[in-house]
């Protein structure tokens, strides 16, 4: 009990001290997950719009597939990206394995289905009357689509935050493709796993507290967006 209290107080001390190692690990985590989220949004939002507004064969199958991919196990994604990026793999020539780029790629695969699928749900749940009203007021089909996207903005933001929460807390995939190299690919979750193994709990706890704080901030943001979306619909 004493040991836990001591570790916790040291952990808080590390946070308050703004320990350099701690800060660099947090910044790398945010950079990797933030980049993955931005790229996922850049691909996922047009994809969601295409599925919501487009009419093409096998659209339903495609939507189902995306929903299924939302639950992809991170270690499987890690393994797949590892095989693709390893020296003998098809993209081995890019020499990306054990780099932050490989970690971003793995996180994109995890975040993209969440962003696309939840954004698609948000878009199709916009009242169909909005499309008609927009048309009757003289909007072009493109402007109608933009209006629907605007109406779905809280749902889309919820999807983005859910995806960010998932990739920030993820450990399996980035451990496999990043290698947990100190000062290069070591992020919060992989550091916690490593330091716990070593019995060095103060850094692990400090990062755990910060991860929890980020997770709480994301959840608070999520509930604000959900509430806003619900009260204003």
């Amino acid at each position: 009990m004493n040991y836990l209290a001591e570790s916790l107080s040291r952990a808080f001390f590390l946070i308050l001290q703004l320990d350099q190692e701690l800060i660099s690990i947090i910044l790398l985590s945010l950079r990797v997950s933030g980049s993955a989220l931005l790229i996922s949004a850049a691909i996922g939002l047009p994809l969601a719009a295409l599925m919501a507004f487009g009419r093409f064969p096998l659209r339903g199958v495609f939507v189902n597939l995306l929903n299924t991919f939302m639950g992809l196990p991170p270690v499987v994604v890690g393994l797949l990206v590892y095989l693709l990026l390893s020296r003998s793999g098809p993209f081995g020539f890019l020499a990306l394995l054990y780099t932050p780029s490989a970690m971003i790629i793995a996180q994109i695969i995890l975040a993209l289905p969440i962003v696309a699928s939840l954004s698609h749900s948000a878009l199709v749940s916009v009242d169909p009357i909005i499309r008609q009203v927009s048309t009757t007021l003289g909007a072009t089909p493109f402007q109608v689509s933009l209006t629907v996207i605007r109406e779905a903005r809280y749902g889309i933001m919820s999807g983005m935050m859910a995806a960010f929460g998932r990739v920030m807390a993820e450990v399996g995939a980035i451990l496999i493709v990043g290698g947990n190299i100190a000062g290069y690919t070591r992020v919060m979750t992989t550091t916690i796993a490593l330091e716990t193994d070593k019995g060095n709990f103060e850094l692990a706890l400090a990062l755990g507290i910060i991860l929890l704080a980020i997770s709480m901030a994301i959840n608070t943001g999520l509930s604000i967006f959900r509430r806003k979306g619900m009260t204003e619909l």
Partner: protein
Amino acid sequence: MKLKLEISHIMRSPHGNLVLEDCSYSFDRGGAYLLMGPNGSGKSTLLRICALLEKQDRGEVTYYAGEQRLQHDISLKRRMTLVLPQVGIFNATVFDNVSYGLKIRGAGRQEIERKTLELLEFAGLAAKKNQRALSLSSGEKQRLGIARALVVAPEMLFLDEPTASIDEANTRLIEEMILGKKKSGMTMIITTHDRLQAERLADQMLLIRDKKLVEG
């Protein structure tokens, strides 16, 4: 050139259920045309066909500017607006809702500000311009819908049951808005099942009887 609408031999039969049969009419003067008929008689369907929101199964909807026949393209569609019975409020402020039509037409900031405020005054909503539009009462929402349709100064305005589900005070306000706009020479085609209202507003009464359009 004044916009004129001519419909000829319109037939509409959604899912095999005949709603309109051989409806023809020429809306060639300004003012208010009141389209009457009981619920389910096809008034809204005819209105949506006239406003190019729905396609007829047979017949023709033709718009003219003078003698020139117009293409059913976006420039024609931007000369008319339709207010649906469920107004369809955007999740934004009252001001943003009313200014929507101007924004999508690429109007400048000052023009948007001036015209929107003018219409908000006209609709009695100026004091609520910064309020979330979804929090308005149903009568206010209906007035907002009409203001939003009028802000772009359409040459033809379609109103589908504009006072169907609102109180007497709001009905009176909306009727005043319609009467106010009639003076501008705008063509309005309005559906209602309220004969007294039709008599108060109409320059020309039309009836849908046995799926056909007749003068009332």
